[in-house]
């Protein structure tokens, strides 16, 4: 009831659609305009990102002698520039999707743990611990990955290759630590907190009567979660996973440090090699000439569009759910 009166009060005080920005006084007008202007400025920045990336990408794309979308080459500064994004797109999607597959079940498990299994008093503290994972900068993950995790993953790769080498995914001739799989595991660690914190929020919104009804029917804790919580939170979990995917797609430095890049497309995720959009930009920018920069900007534009689509879809799912609740 309190929230209802608050809502009414809010709409009364803040006015409906027709309400003007100010009372007409100078100070009021200036303040209203600068507030609105800041909002518009944000929109302009997004638009400018698209416009200027396109503007700088076009000359390089015109100089490209290979097909930008299907070529696997990346030598934009050669006398005859040839570059394409196929291998970059492949590596980016492969590593991100593996990361997502690894991270989503764990993240939802964490969210369930904090929301339903952990002691009430510890819940917020435990949530903070998981959020700390997000506070660690990606360059530190990169350093940790390169110095500590890669040697560990090398033996994991040997084990997987030795025992499951007949699965094409784990095949290839020389397996090692600086592989797509290692990059994917590091990415999975980095996107865990995003997915779990959004899922947790969704779980906390589950109507209490539903939970209590399930309990009253004699359901065990797992049955409550399966019948009352998961169906309610499905779209929220999907969008959480997609936001995690968006983050994984654009992650740069950790991947650039962990992955030993190599040209070409390969499904052998244990082999050192592969490349991603962002890692390629970070690794080759220092040596890039004029066309090279244009080519990198063009590949960044593709990354921008992909993450934009993923993020917009995720947000749209959340927004649609809000209308139903």
């Amino acid at each position, binding site marked *: 009831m309190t929230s209802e009166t608050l809502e009414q009060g809010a709409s009364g005080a803040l006015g409906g659609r027709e309400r003007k920005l100010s009372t007409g006084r100078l100070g009021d007008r200036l303040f209203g305009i600068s507030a609105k202007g800041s909002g518009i400025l944000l929109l302009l920045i997004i638009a400018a990102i698209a416009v200027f990336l396109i503007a700088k990408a076009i000359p390089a794309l015109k100089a490209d002698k290979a097909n930008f979308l299907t070529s696997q080459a990346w030598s934009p500064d050669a006398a005859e520039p040839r570059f394409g994004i196929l291998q970059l797109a492949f590596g980016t999607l492969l590593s991100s999707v593996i990361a997502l597959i690894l991270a989503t079940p764990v993240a939802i498990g964490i969210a369930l743990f904090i929301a339903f299994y952990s002691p009430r008093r510890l819940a917020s503290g435990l949530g903070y611990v998981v959020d700390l994972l997000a506070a660690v900068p990606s360059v530190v993950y990169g350093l940790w990955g390169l110095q500590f995790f890669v040697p560990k993953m090398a033996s994991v790769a040997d084990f997987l290759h030795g025992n499951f080498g007949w699965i094409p995914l784990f095949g290839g001739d020389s397996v090692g630590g600086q592989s797509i799989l290692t990059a994917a595991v590091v990415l999975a660690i980095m996107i865990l907190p995003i997915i779990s914190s959004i899922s947790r929020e969704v779980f906390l919104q589950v109507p209490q009567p539903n939970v209590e009804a399930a309990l009253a029917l004699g359901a065990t804790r797992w049955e409550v979660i399966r019948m009352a919580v998961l169906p309610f939170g499905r779209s929220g979990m999907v969008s959480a996973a997609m936001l995690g995917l968006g983050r994984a797609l*654009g992650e*740069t430095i950790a991947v650039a440090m962990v992955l030993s890049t190599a040209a070409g497309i390969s499904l052998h995720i244990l082999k050192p090699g592969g490349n991603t959009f962002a890692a390629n930009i970070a690794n080759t920018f220092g040596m890039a000439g004029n066309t090279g920069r244009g080519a990198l900007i063009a590949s960044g534009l593709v990354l921008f569009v992909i993450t934009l689509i993923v993020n917009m879809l995720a947000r749209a799912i959340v927004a649609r759910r809000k209308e139903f609740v």
Partner: protein
Amino acid sequence: MSTPNTPALRGVSAGRKFKDRSVQVLVYVAFALAVIPLVSVLWTVIQKGSKRFDGAFFTHSLNGIGANDAGGGAYHAIIGTVEQVALASIIAIPIGILTAIYLVEYGRDSRLAKVVSFFVDVMTGLPSIVAGLFILAFWLLLLGFSYSGFAGALALSILMMPTVVRAAEEMLKLVPTDLREASYALGVPRWRTICFVVLPTAFTGIITGIMLAIARVMGETAPLLLTVFVTSAINNNAFEGPQMALPLFIFDQAGRPNDTAIDRAWAAALTLIVIIMLLNLVARVIARLRKPVSR
């Protein structure tokens, strides 16, 4: 008045109990899986970083330090990070808070506010390298400025804005409408109401959000790589010439083959983590000490 014919209540069947227990175990394992990398990262950083975490590290730059030499420090990188993040904050915080004010106080139901709100969400997911590429394409290539700390700060501010907007928006929404109405009833104009009634009420919450946003951009490497470039000398002027930053320092040193460089990278990682964790901690403490007046 017991009814003799009710069948005795049987407990939960073994199968259901087993399922319930195994899910519980899985959920505990999931949480453990998240804690392992966190502990591992923090432990290795503290252990390996403490080796060079000394006075010289914080008072010297890398100028004149040969590839194989020990010694040298990250003074130039710390200066660079502080200046870049400060500049980014100066740009991003006013824009972010004003946008939040627009969304909560003025826009509410308007179509523009909905569009802005949607794109703020979208901007939150902007890959940091794309922000760097944008500043590269716009500020460096098109307008012809050279690499500088300020260019890096521009890129960081783009990454900071959506976080500030969201944090400030959440806090402004918590300010009770009664306060605004009381102020209006006294004949106080709207902008004074917002500046002197609404913002102070939400102040601590907004500060918390800002500190978390600062902590987030402080660790960004990718955009700086494209805009600030790398130097080993001290450059106090963020507006001219290449600068250094702590994340860049880590990236640069980690890519070198010598142990001395790797040690410096770890020490810089420890420095960065300490700063970021302190910011996080202080932010949480502020948030806990004085929660905004809510319903």
